[in-house]
């Protein structure tokens, strides 16, 4: 008798009403469902006979197919077939290029490129560790180039005035004498070789335009600096700055004191001090507190002063000659007017040149320092931070207290609001009570009067 004769296909009347369940029965049988879905199906199977029959039928078909499969995959390969496959593979591999003929970077690209990158990285790290002076020497060379550039651009006569860096100024003893004086004094301790050679070249080969320099024998440098100092007491520091400037023979050009919204004070002072006192004053200002920023620059005004001096001399001689001609030689009226106009123009130019020369001399005599004083931030009272269990408990206690205070604050605020509006609600309440009593009294009287 056929074992499966009783397995009838469910009719429409007995079919499972849930197509979703029916669609998952095969996956349930193959254990390919999630745990939740599997439990749902299992619960359904306990109640649905049609699905149970479907499961049985599926199992039967699966068993039947596996039993009928004469070429089962799990069986061993026929030895003849195995030999045939291996022979064909051997013949195929003999025609293919062996893996060893490929370059290493194609066979192991990750190993080659990754290893190469790691090697370069390790080399750079070792180079940085073993040769720490490499960067320093480069920095020094760069600084030397900068100084040399500054020296070249500050040609004594031909240049138009150059900015000296602090290194340049500080590297020359008696900086007001200029680099040439320093060279002549034979004291180039901090001047780089590049600068030294450049200056020596200029000293050996003076140009023809160096000759008029005799009018201004010393190099004139206008120096400017700015320093920002953080101080404890701003007024006292500002007072110290003013006293120091006055003691040095300079003056305070401006002094601005400001207070920001958070109460911090700051002061900006512009002071002018004698050039000879510049370095000392700068050190004094820096000693007032913590220096947060500073800069120093120098401008060579020797050429401008020389030009102005020469122009003044030429204009003075021209004015004197014109005036002499006017006095000695009358000439025609037209010539006289022309010479008078010329004399007027020359005198105007002479006055302008003298004013410019005076300004340059003043610049060469006085250096400018901008001093910015800022008050140090006052440290807030630091509460000791505890760590560990006690710290956690302390923090919890603090947070709970804050929460309690917030909770208490709400009714207090509400009470304050109620009290603030009491002029409104108190009379209204009294009026309401009065009206209520009147109404109650009227009702009572009416009930008494009623028959």
């Amino acid at each position, binding site marked *: 008798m056929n074992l499966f004769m009783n397995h009838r296909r469910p009719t429409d009347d007995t079919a499972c009403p849930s197509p979703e369940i029916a669609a998952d029965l095969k996956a349930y049988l193959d254990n390919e469902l999630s745990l939740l879905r599997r439990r749902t199906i299992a619960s359904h199977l306990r109640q649905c006979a049609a699905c149970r029959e479907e499961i049985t039928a599926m199992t039967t078909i699966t068993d039947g197919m596996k*039993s009928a499969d004469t070429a089962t995959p799990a069986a061993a390969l026929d030895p003849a077939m195995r030999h045939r496959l291996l022979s064909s593979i051997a013949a*195929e591999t003999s025609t293919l290029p062996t893996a060893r003929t490929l370059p290493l970077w194609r066979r192991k690209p990750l190993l080659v490129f990754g290893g190469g990158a790691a090697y370069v990285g390790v080399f750079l790290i070792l180079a940085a560790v073993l040769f720490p002076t490499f960067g320093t020497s480069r920095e020094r060379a760069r600084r030397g180039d900068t100084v040399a550039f500054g020296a070249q651009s500050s040609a004594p006569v031909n240049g138009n005035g150059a900015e000296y860096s602090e290194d340049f100024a500080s590297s020359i003893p008696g900086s007001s004498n200029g680099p040439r004086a320093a060279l002549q004094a034979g004291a180039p301790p901090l001047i780089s070789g590049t600068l030294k050679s450049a200056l020596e070249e200029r000293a050996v080969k003076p140009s023809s335009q160096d000759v008029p320099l005799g009018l201004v024998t010393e190099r004139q440098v206008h120096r400017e600096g700015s320093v920002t100092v953080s101080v404890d007491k701003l007024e006292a520091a500002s007072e110290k700055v003013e006293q120091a400037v006055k003691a040095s023979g300079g003056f305070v050009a401006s002094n601005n004191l400001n207070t920001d919204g958070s109460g911090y004070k700051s002061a900006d002072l512009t002071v002018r001090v004698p050039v000879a006192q510049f370095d000392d004053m700068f050190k004094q200002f820096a000693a007032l507190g913590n220096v947060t920023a500073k800069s120093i620059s120098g401008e060579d005004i020797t050429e401008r002063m020389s030009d102005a001096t020469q122009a003044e001399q030429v204009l003075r001689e021209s004015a004197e000659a014109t005036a002499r001609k006017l006095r000695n030689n009358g000439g025609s009226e037209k010539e006289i007017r022309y010479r008078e106009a010329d004399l007027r123009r020359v005198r105007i130019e002479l006055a302008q040149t003298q004013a410019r020369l005076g300004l340059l001399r003043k610049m060469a005599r006085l250096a400018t320092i901008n001093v910015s004083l800022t008050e140090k931030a006052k440290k807030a009272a630091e509460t000791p931070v505890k760590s560990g269990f006690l710290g956690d408990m302390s923090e919890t206690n603090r947070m709970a207290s804050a929460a309690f205070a917030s909770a208490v604050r709400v009714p207090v605020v509400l009470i304050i609001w109620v009290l603030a509006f009491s002029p409104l609600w108190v009379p209204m309440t009294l009026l309401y009570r009065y009206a209520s009593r009147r109404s109650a009294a009227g009702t009572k009287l009416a009930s008494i009067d009623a028959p």
Partner: protein
Amino acid sequence: MITRMQAGSAAAFAEFVDAYGRRVQSLARRYTRTTADAEDLTQDIFVDICRGIRQFRGESSLGTWVYRVALNHCLKAQGRSRPETVELEAESGTPSEEGNPQRHLARRELADKVDDALFDLTSGHRDVVILHELHGLTYAECAAILGIPVGTVKSRLSNAFGRLRTRLSDYVLGSEPVTPHPETATAAPPTFFTALPERAAK
């Protein structure tokens, strides 16, 4: 093993043939007419795998990749003709069946029915049934080999079994006894399942 195969190791290829040879041959047999065609196709598949093993990047498992290559070859070979009934002389039964011709005939008959039923399925449904039911691959592996979502594998299997049930109902589930093949008709019970008393008892 993959690395050694990519390096051209003969031992690795022998190991590989031992591991996948029978599976590939079994799969090829499902898509070819005769056993000889299946063997030729298996040989082509392994040669192709041998050529392409260096392009294998390990993005999927080796088994999935092998099945994918094999299935591509099988689908190409499938267009030639439908598989015929396997020759009796070519298929030898298991040793336990050699002394039981009734049982062997019943198995043969069921195999024919299953082959016919599988052939009536669409290509997509048949591939899923073969890979999952006959080769024991999981839904995820079937999905990776066929390049379809797992949900599609699940629905295809469910639909395929619905059709198989209809197709095999006369034989497996029908009320009437299955008539054995005229050439193989003997006094033995007509169906494979009735030829397996131990299975019936189970």
